[in-house]
């Protein structure tokens, strides 16, 4: 009679004890130790460190196949895009210039599929004497200061310079058109300045297209933008989806900017955010599209 009253609860008790023992063993006595893990299991910030390291190593070896293999270990959906996004983040977060350059150079190499590094875009403080795969040269000096140009872009709103475009106006070049970074001593010429009115992009921007004489986009060109009390650097090619010769910079309304190529050339001065009119007469910010060519 006594046994019948207890029923089958002891079975459930046994189950609970069994599960408890299993958990004690797996969580306390022999907890999981992460060993022999692959790179794709790294935490996000460590993945960023890993990409920077791959890019920095690529600067030495110029071995794109190896760099690709290493990046593939992270199992990103698109290694080029991940790298480009990280390069952009690094710029906005004010990471060291060497890191930004390394990420940018590897991004461009992946986009272009090139296997050699143009020494003129390597970090200036670098010295790779003895390296069998890289020719060193000093960082290109600023050959012409910003503001030295006599050609000042038209920054006022007029009927000739305003384009009402319903969508993005940026060409999307094929990779075969891509040219390498210009050689030391090249001087860029500001060929065109146009106010682009695109209601889908209401934030004022300076958009830059850098091309060679044949109209092929040039990636990896450093651009310097200055304003009263500030300066920033950015590079073409970090948004490959918009073209490898493309770069942009977000403007603050009311601030006057000057822009020039880091390697020298004509400057675009007195750039301020300009407004556009939509079909319903409402105003929105337009963007300045500057086209620089390498004659």
């Amino acid at each position, binding site marked *: 009679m006594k046994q019948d009253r207890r029923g089958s609860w002891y079975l459930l008790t*046994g189950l609970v*004890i069994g599960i408890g023992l299993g958990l004690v063993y797996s969580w306390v006595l022999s907890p999981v130790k992460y060993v*022999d893990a692959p*790179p794709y299991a790294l935490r996000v910030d460590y993945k960023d460190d890993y990409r920077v*390291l791959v890019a920095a190593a690529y*600067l030495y070896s110029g071995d794109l196949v190896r760099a690709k293999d290493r990046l593939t270990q992270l199992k990103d959906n698109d290694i080029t895009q991940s790298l480009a996004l990280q390069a952009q983040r690094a710029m906005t977060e004010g990471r060291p210039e060497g890191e930004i350059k390394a990420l940018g150079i590897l991004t461009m190499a992946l986009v272009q599929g090139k296997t050699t590094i143009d020494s003129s875009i390597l970090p200036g403080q670098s010295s790779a004497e003895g390296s069998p795969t890289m020719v060193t040269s000093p960082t290109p000096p600023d050959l012409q200061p910003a503001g030295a140009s006599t050609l000042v872009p038209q920054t006022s709103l007029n009927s000739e310079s305003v384009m009402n475009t319903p969508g993005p106006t940026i060409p999307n070049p094929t990779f075969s058109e891509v040219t390498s970074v210009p050689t030391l001593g090249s001087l860029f010429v500001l060929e065109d300045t146009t106010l682009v009115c695109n209601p889908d992009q209401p934030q004022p921007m300076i958009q830059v297209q850098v091309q060679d004489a044949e109209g092929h986009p040039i990636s990896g060109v450093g651009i310097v933008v200055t304003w009263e009390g500030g300066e920033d650097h950015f590079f073409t090619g970090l948004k490959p989806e918009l073209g490898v010769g493309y770069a942009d910079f977000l403007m603050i309304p009311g601030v006057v900017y000057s822009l020039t190529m880091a390697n020298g050339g004509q400057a675009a001065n007195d750039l301020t955010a300009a407004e556009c009119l939509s079909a319903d007469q409402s105003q929105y910010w337009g963007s300045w599209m500057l086209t620089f060519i390498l004659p």
Partner: protein
Amino acid sequence: MSRWTKFLLAVIIGAAAGLFYGWIVNPVAYVDIAPSSLRADYKTDFVLMVAEAYQVDHDLGLSVRRLALLGSSAPTEIVADALSYAHQHEFRSQDLSLLQDLGEALRTWNPNQEIPTP
């Protein structure tokens, strides 16, 4: 079958259920790990990348900070382990040289001379 036997059977079934859940239904997933948990070959490649980067930036402090991601061992020890692995697995001679260069440079490294980074 006695109650004790049934009880022990229930314990075993419970433990088996726990193992089935832990190994099959919801196995351990490697996520958010640190570089110190990387497999030996990946660790060695990590050190090799540090050595390659060092050839460009010549910044021992930066190299040490990068190596520190691989654990709390001394940087020279980390490089020595990588070099040992590289020798065992017949890495290219250039890669071995790079690791040796970094290891030798680290022997002369004095952390007190490091300027702290903000």
